[in-house]
């Protein structure tokens, strides 16, 4: 028999995913000079790209039968279904959401949060960390 003793502390399972995308930071509301002033090299007319790393944290009770908060296969399917929409794409040109929203790390992580929060029910989504380069990352926590 497996123990059914409830665990009071919070358990969070994290897995790291990757995707690679191109983008360009530029606002329709600004002149080209203003865009260059604000976004600098990220405003390069033909775009540039990153290997993004996304750490996804899922919380919940541990299922006594499996010992897991979530089955990893379910997590892979849900996260990869979303990342597939971004992977090897130019975000501004090929992903509808970023045709009208500037594809900064801040906006990308909020987009990912809102989409994943729909896939993972019962507020299972607890934490996201989006690495844009080795030197900068963005975080969201429930």
């Amino acid at each position, binding site marked *: *028999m*497996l123990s059914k003793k409830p665990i*009071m*502390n*919070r358990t*969070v399972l*994290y897995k*790291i995913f990757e995707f690679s995308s191109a983008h360009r930071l530029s606002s329709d509301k600004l002149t080209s000079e203003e865009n260059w002033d604000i976004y600098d090299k990220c405003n390069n007319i033909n775009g540039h790209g990153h290997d993004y790393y996304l750490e996804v944290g899922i919380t919940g009770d541990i299922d006594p039968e*499996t010992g897991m908060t979530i089955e990893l296969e379910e997590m892979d399917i849900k996260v990869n279904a979303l990342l597939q929409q971004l992977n090897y794409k130019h975000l501004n040109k090929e992903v509808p959401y970023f045709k009208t929203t500037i594809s900064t790390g801040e906006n990308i992580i909020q987009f990912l949060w809102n989409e994943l929060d729909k896939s993972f029910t019962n507020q299972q989504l607890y934490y996201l960390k989006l690495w844009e380069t080795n030197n900068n990352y963005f975080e969201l926590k429930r």
Partner: protein
Amino acid sequence: MGNQQVLITKKFEFSASHRYWNEDWSKEKNEEIFGKCTSPYGHGHNYELHVTISGRVDQNTGMIINLSDLKKHVNEIVKSFDHKFLNLDTPYFQNKIPTTENIANVMFELIENQIKDKGDFSLHKIRLYEKKDLYVDVIKETNHE
């Protein structure tokens, strides 16, 4: 000054093998849910454990906890997992699958007991890496939402 809760984290490593198998299930169901983790001889990982202690900074020492004491206390626990087949060589997984979630919760409880009453500090969090891209946090929470 000196009245804030500060967090300090120390890292540890251990290597262990494990096997996922639920005795209440058929072979087929075990293989469907746990896949290659069902191999009867087990498989292993190099685990990395981050232990985070919270407390106020002692004005005399400038420390929350003496790191060599923390190392001693945590190593007491870690050595009972290191180079072991967790299912058979530890008493903790007789009725629990040794998933990263369960190992982390067992270790949290053991470390918390080990440092209890040793000073004015407490275990805040542990993070257990099974692989570079897969890890679990157990966080002390008084109000679990």
